[in-house]
């Protein structure tokens, strides 16, 4: 059987949804912070840089646990969100998006920052003298020239989110149809006595997806060089 079963289909759709949303919510922050780190000099820049890159080196389980502390039912932010807005993050698909976003953020930030650094800052100054306000100059010149790097970062983050396991299972657990993304589903099947065939199918799917994202990002990176 080539076609996915309904269960596999649910997993696949959830994984793609989490991946895409994680890219969408990280992007504005990555552009803002990437710009700050690329163009501004201030005290504490190293610390900010370190904090942004921390999720890259921390064990994902630690990230997931910290998120739980912060956004869990009794967490500081979690209480505010649920009392004021009635939004539940922990143990929901929203939490899965957040976990993937936090873990994938350094990858995107790095790509965006490098892309912005490679744009000659004088071009933006020239745009200002031609009548563009700062925001307009940034979006029409710097960000536009940095777009290939931003795309590469987005694809990397997307690919990373497809593989996110530790932070997700710690923060939002493994709930079928809600937070069970590809790696979690594979993990579940492997732990079932007769689940190996099903796991193998998902492993293959996972490889295809990740490889596709990586090839796409490499293709963009190459195109950018030319």
């Amino acid at each position, binding site marked *: 059987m080539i076609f996915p079963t309904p269960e596999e289909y649910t997993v696949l759709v959830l994984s793609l949804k989490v991946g895409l949303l994680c890219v969408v919510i990280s992007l504005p922050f990555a552009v803002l912070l990437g710009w700050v780190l690329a163009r501004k000099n201030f005290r504490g820049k190293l610390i900010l840089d370190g904090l942004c890159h921390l999720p890259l080196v921390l064990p994902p389980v630690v990230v997931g646990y910290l998120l739980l502390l912060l956004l869990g039912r009794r967490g500081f932010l979690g209480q505010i969100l649920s009392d004021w807005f009635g939004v539940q993050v922990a143990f929901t698909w929203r939490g899965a998006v957040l976990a993937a976003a936090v873990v994938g953020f350094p990858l995107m930030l790095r790509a965006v920052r490098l892309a912005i650094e490679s744009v*000659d800052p*004088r*071009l933006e*100054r*020239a*745009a*200002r*003298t*031609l*009548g*563009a*306000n*700062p925001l307009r*100059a940034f979006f*029409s*010149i710097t960000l*536009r*020239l940095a777009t290939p790097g931003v795309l590469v970062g987005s694809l990397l983050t997307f690919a990373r989110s497809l593989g996110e396991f530790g932070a997700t299972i710690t923060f939002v657990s493994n709930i079928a149809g809600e937070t069970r993304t590809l790696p979690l589903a594979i993990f579940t099947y492997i732990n079932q006595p007769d689940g190996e065939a099903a796991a193998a199918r998902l492993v293959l799917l996972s490889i295809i997806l990740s490889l596709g994202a990586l090839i796409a990002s490499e293709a963009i990176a190459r195109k950018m060089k030319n």
Partner: protein
Amino acid sequence: MLTLCVHRQLAEFNLEIDVTCAYPVTAIFGPSGCGKTTLLNLISGLMRPDSGQISIDDTILFHAEKGIDLPPEKRRIGHVFQDDLLFPHLTVRQNLLYGYQFLAPSERKFHPDTIIDLLELNTLLDRNPNLLSGGERQRVALGRAILTSPRLLVMDEPLTALDQELKDRIMPYLRHIRTDLGIPMLYVSHAIGEILQLTGQVIVLNRGQVLAHGDFFSIAHQPKILPLLEAHGFENVLPVEVIASNRVQYNNQTLHIPPCDRAPGTHIFIGIRANDIILCQQRPAGLSIRNALPGRILDIVETHGRRLVYIDVGKRLAAEVTPEAIRELALTIGDPVICLIKTHAIRIGPDVS
């Protein structure tokens, strides 16, 4: 009229400028690192003065005490940079219209087609700037700045990155902008020859201070200006009368010059670099050089490691000669000599006003 009174502390010295430019074209001359680029950045709002004020006609661009500091996009200063800074992701046409699009229709003084024709950019419009030559790029940068209908065009050594042939080709465009479009210009250069083709009004800048300001020919011989000029290849300047498109008259002698567009009868200045003058003791035969001016040696001096021989040819000319040549020819003060000048070593300057 541009009124400048600014102070700004820089790493090496303080920039301290207090001048008023009433002429349509004023040039700022000075050695590298004298603060020229900083001054332009202060005017266009890319840098902030520590104190002072900047205004054009009745519009205040910056006023420290009143707390006025217009951002660059509100100043309407056309800034042409030394590196053209064209936007690499836009076509030539999009580059040209980048600033134009921000203007309200009532503020647009020039039609894009007029400027495209003037700068002969018609065939380049759909090209990517990266595929243009240096001269073409600089023309696009010029057009892009003009199309913002600026109050003032400031140009930061726009020709420095180009070779001599390209410089000669762009200069007529600059003269067109000056004469036909009527945009006031502030032209920064460390090449007097370039400046004199546009204007005689010069501000001489050194280490952030204005050394002199006024008509080049009246300030050039001031003791504090001369060394600066000499350090940059002194340009001899002679007032001449145009008698044909490639000949001028000086003291009853005819000099051959490169083709120029001035009408016969016009009095203009021509410039000759000190190291483009060859001295000889007799009028030579069988040489291709057309121009030979007889004169007497006034003085032989050494400045900045160079030997300059001053010759009285009706006006004072400086010629750069090696010490060996001075010894071999036994050049002494009072000797008659002939100054040989190649036609193409002569630069066409502004009209004598």
